[in-house]
């Protein structure tokens, strides 16, 4: 089965500092990769995704993630965080081997809590 590992359960950081949230997955075949963000008391929302093409993908609020096929990683980075970035971040992988009815079933990591201190 596909597995997704988010290496850090919690990442504390000061405002305006850079941050990296790590994500590794087990499959080496063609995959779709996603980062979702969950703000307090809300559902998840898409932050960014990688389907194909350029290995570096960006979000509208300054986050970026790089697909590294050889290391099966999809780490999320931001050069300067804000208090408002405090949230839970989830990495997810859709693998064509895990499908039902023609639909890929995504696997989620356990999440990383980003805590930005003033």
């Amino acid at each position, binding site marked *: 089965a596909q597995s997704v590992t988010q290496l850090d*359960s919690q990442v504390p950081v000061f405002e305006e500092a850079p941050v990296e949230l790590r994500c590794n997955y087990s499959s080496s075949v063609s995959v779709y990769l996603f980062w979702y963000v969950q703000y307090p008391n809300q*559902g*998840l929302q898409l932050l960014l995704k990688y389907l194909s093409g350029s290995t570096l993908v960006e979000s509208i609020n300054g986050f970026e993630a790089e697909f590294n096929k050889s290391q099966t990683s999809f780490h999320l980075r931001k050069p300067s965080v804000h208090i408002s970035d405090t949230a839970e971040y989830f990495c997810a992988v859709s693998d064509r081997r895990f499908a039902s009815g*023609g639909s*890929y079933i995504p696997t989620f990591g*356990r*999440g990383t809590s980003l805590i930005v201190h003033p």
Partner: protein
Amino acid sequence: DVKVTQSSRYLVKRTGEKVFLECVQDMDHENMFWYRQDPGLGLRLIYFSYDVKMKEKGDIPEGYSVSREKKERFSLILESASTNQTSMYLCASRWTSGGYEQFFGPGTRLTVL
């Protein structure tokens, strides 16, 4: 904007009660999902439906059932609620292709006493 709504934000039930959690999406998505979210465990898939009347068990289906009679609505049923089903329940929907992202509802926090 895609909207996924869940019938309740907070729900308190007693052990042994039958519990219905409703999810409705307005974007004609084929796929719908039910997850439970617990601290330190992330999202765990309970059931998945890839189309009307079609369902597949996820990783933790025990104690749950689902119903999808209409494309826009996906219901999660706890036949006899137990305290270990106290959790946050998240519904999501998506178009069929694996490259499409999921859209999530706000969640239902269920407490079983």
